[in-house]
């Protein structure tokens, strides 16, 4: 179905210059942020308006051509890549902030708005958009909705799903539905909650209403360095148990600190520390002061050698720099990076990190850990060179073992990156056949023809069949 004629017809909708179908043009779109999955899409189309987007999806539905929605392509699950039989619908030209209501603290956006740009746009009103994935200067809010993205500041304020209240969704059959309401309460069941995190398989959010939050009056960032990872992990649990939920609670291990400090992003982190902990407190000045008075001794009690703290934006940025640029710094260590995203119960962190290190040693790999310690979301990053097949195989095997260890501790296979192509084989580790079947059935409610982002998230072979009853079949036929 993918051929020059199809490209030409798409060109009639969006203009020929916004359709790519020559191999060299497609090369940009063969991967997302994860180098381990690569695939050439059949065609890439870049609609320039909501109307063009609707026309594209309606056209593709008429032709029964599968499509993959894509934002900035910064995802880390191989979710926004398409094979040669599908059209990649890039939403990066839909960048309008449609409206901002500073009193009700709401903003309505097109899906291609870059995450950080939204916060910049509302900053003069004293407001911000809280979820802040590390890729926030590039990633789009539409992509954040698809992945239910998190970020360092989601510990206290929640992830994307806690900040999206209303969606105008273009279903894969080209029809529009309005989910949720700007007020936050739903019209009926919580379909916004169901849609967020559906990884582009339920349709495309073409207008997104998000909550805005006030920029905190006071922010204090602390950097503590520990002689042991265990001490740092236990400090994390102790802080949370004290009743204080910091705005962010991030950890980096020595390998990660070394990578940062030997890069252009060097932030002055102590390279002899086994672990570095970043703690950020925000709120009213008095509350921050009071929480600091509790947190600082907890850090010391659990073995922190030094605790630096900063209140000014410049100083805080310096403390954050190493964390924010950790992924970039690791790029120097080796050409490729396998990024993991498992979550474990906070209390299991020290043991899990020991086990990850044991796996590292057994497979003789370079692993650096940088993670959202406050919510147990690990990012063990394996540096490698994918041109070396034997090494790549070891990376795959080690990744799988790390995942199994995390699942065995009662965790999850992904905390914020999504399943995409990368973790689809891990899904049966945490969901039984019936639950996977339910996911597939819900997917079919939104997309009966299964045209949107086919083959991702749900391992269809592992599903128990749903919608098998006569009544359900009849309904499907009607649908």
């Amino acid at each position: 179905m993918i051929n020059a004629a199809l490209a030409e017809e798409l060109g009639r909708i969006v203009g020929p210059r916004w359709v790519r179908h020559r191999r060299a043009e497609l090369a940009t779109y063969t991967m997302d942020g994860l180098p381990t999955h690569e695939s050439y899409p059949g065609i890439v189309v870049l609609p320039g308006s909501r109307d063009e987007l609707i026309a594209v999806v309606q056209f593709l539905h008429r032709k029964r051509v599968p499509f993959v929605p894509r934002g900035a392509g910064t995802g880390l699950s191989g979710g926004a890549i398409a094979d040669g039989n599908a059209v990649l619908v890039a939403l990066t030209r839909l960048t309008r902030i449609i409206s901002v209501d500073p009193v009700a603290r709401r903003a309505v956006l097109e899906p291609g708005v870059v995450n950080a740009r939204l916060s910049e746009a509302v900053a003069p009103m004293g407001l911000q958009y809280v979820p802040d994935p590390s890729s926030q200067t590039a990633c789009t809010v539409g992509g954040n909705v698809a992945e239910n993205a998190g970020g360092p500041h989601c510990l206290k304020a929640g992830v994307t799903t806690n900040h999206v209240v209303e969606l105008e969704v273009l279903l894969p059959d080209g029809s529009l539905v309005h989910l949720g309401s700007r007020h936050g309460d739903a019209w009926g069941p919580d379909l916004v909650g169901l849609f967020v995190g559906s990884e582009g398989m339920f349709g495309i959010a073409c207008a997104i209403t998000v909550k805005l939050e006030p920029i905190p009056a006071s922010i204090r960032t602390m950097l503590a360095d520990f002689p042991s990872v265990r001490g740092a992990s236990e400090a994390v649990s102790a802080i949370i148990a004290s009743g204080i939920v910091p705005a962010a609670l991030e950890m980096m291990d020595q390998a990660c600190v070394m990578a940062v400090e030997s890069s252009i992003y060097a932030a002055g982190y102590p390279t002899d520390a086994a672990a570095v902990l970043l703690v950020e407190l925000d709120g009213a000045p008095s509350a921050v002061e009071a929480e600091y008075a509790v947190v600082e001794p907890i850090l010391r009690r659990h073995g922190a050698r030094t605790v630096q703290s900063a209140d000014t934006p410049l100083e805080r940025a310096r403390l954050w720099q190493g964390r924010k640029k950790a992924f970039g710094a690791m790029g120097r260590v080796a050409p490729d990076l396998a990024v993991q995203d498992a979550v474990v119960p906070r209390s299991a962190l020290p043991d899990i990190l020991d086990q990850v290190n044991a796996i590292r040693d057994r497979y003789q790999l370079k692993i650096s850990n940088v993670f959202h310690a406050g919510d147990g979301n690990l990012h063990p990053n394996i540096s490698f060179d994918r041109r070396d097949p034997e090494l790549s195989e070891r990376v795959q095997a080690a990744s799988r073992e790390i995942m199994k260890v995390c699942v065995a501790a009662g965790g999850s296979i992904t905390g914020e990156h999504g399943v995409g192509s990368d973790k689809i084989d891990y899904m049966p580790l945490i969901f039984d056949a019936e639950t996977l079947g339910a996911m597939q059935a819900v997917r079919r409610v939104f997309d009966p023809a299964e045209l949107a982002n086919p083959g991702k998230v749900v391992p269809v072979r592992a599903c128990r069949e749903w919608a098998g009853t006569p009544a359900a079949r009849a309904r499907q036929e009607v649908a």
Partner: protein
Amino acid sequence: MSDSIALRLRQLLGNEAVERDASGLPRAVPDSTENAARVLSAAHEQGWRVRIEGRGGWLAADAPADLALSTQSLARLTSVSPADLVASVEAGVPLDQLHRRLADDGMWFAVDPPGRPERSLGSVIATAASGPLRQGFGTIRDHILGLTVVTGDGRIVRAGGKVVKNVAGYDLGKLQIGGFGGFGLVTELNLRLRALPRADRTLIARASRDRLTNAGRTITEGRLALHALELFSPALAAESDWVLAARFLGTEEGVAAEVHRLPSVTEEITWQELPADRTAAFWHLAARATLGGAVTIRLGVLQPGLDDVLDLVRDVLGEGLVSAGAGTAGGIRWSGEAQPDALRSLRHQVAQQEIPMTLERAPWTLRRQVGHFGAYREGVGQLVDRLRGTFDPGALLSVALSGE
């Protein structure tokens, strides 16, 4: 027929797990998710209509059915992890019991829904009813990490997980939270907990409604860190005037500073702090007072529109018992006596302002006529119907989501 149903249920669950309600209707009281699944599977095979019951603390058990399915024996706290601030519980657990048990370990489930303190957790999930603490901690959906649901045809679906951050697969649990049981019976839940706050202080002000909603606005503009800011009507608060209640949680010093700031941002009203030993009782009474009318509705409305919508509700339904979020969370809850036409009319009028109205509680005849939801926006009704068809293919769960 009811004898043959009771017999079949006894074969499935044993004698002790089958009762009769006051009208003689067979009632299955399974003690596990698997047994609940056996009941719903059998009902699906036989085409029996099923009414889901909790502890009777919210909705009356009056939906027409061939059998009742109760969560009363699904009331265990399966596991509690103070280090992770996560608990796994069964849906029939009474809320007050849950709170007490968690408090023993210094933990807290930060929800305060309307109704009796002993209402079941499952009823809170089904109705997605949140109370004043939604200002500080979000609505009930923000506290649920994972859940187990038995579908109308007896399948067991385990959505989400036990960790505080998780994007594996679609977020199926969201459909059940606020689904009024129309998509299955929730049997088990994993809850996100918090450590009990060190300080918990409540101040109240009595004044006219306008002055208090205005105070709500200035508090929002002043960006005070508070965790509840709820407006109560005179009838609900059993006072002669409207009451605005502000609740501050956190460290002693942090709370003290915010409490100190409160009068300076709301100069036009006078605050009075409740004695520490009366704080809990004040909020409990307010939650319970909602039951003073046979009908409860909630409206999703943000603070800027609060005054107008409060007027509209009064004009259409009467004074009733009102609570409303005067902070950023917004929301109005109204309880009283109401006729179907008035409810439909109000739903129609607020829909024009894109404000959803949910019927949270009413006798069956009214639920059937008005529906918990209804007035869906374009295309949503179809999705809801298809989802119901997926999770209750025999259409046997006796729930009036959309009304007539």
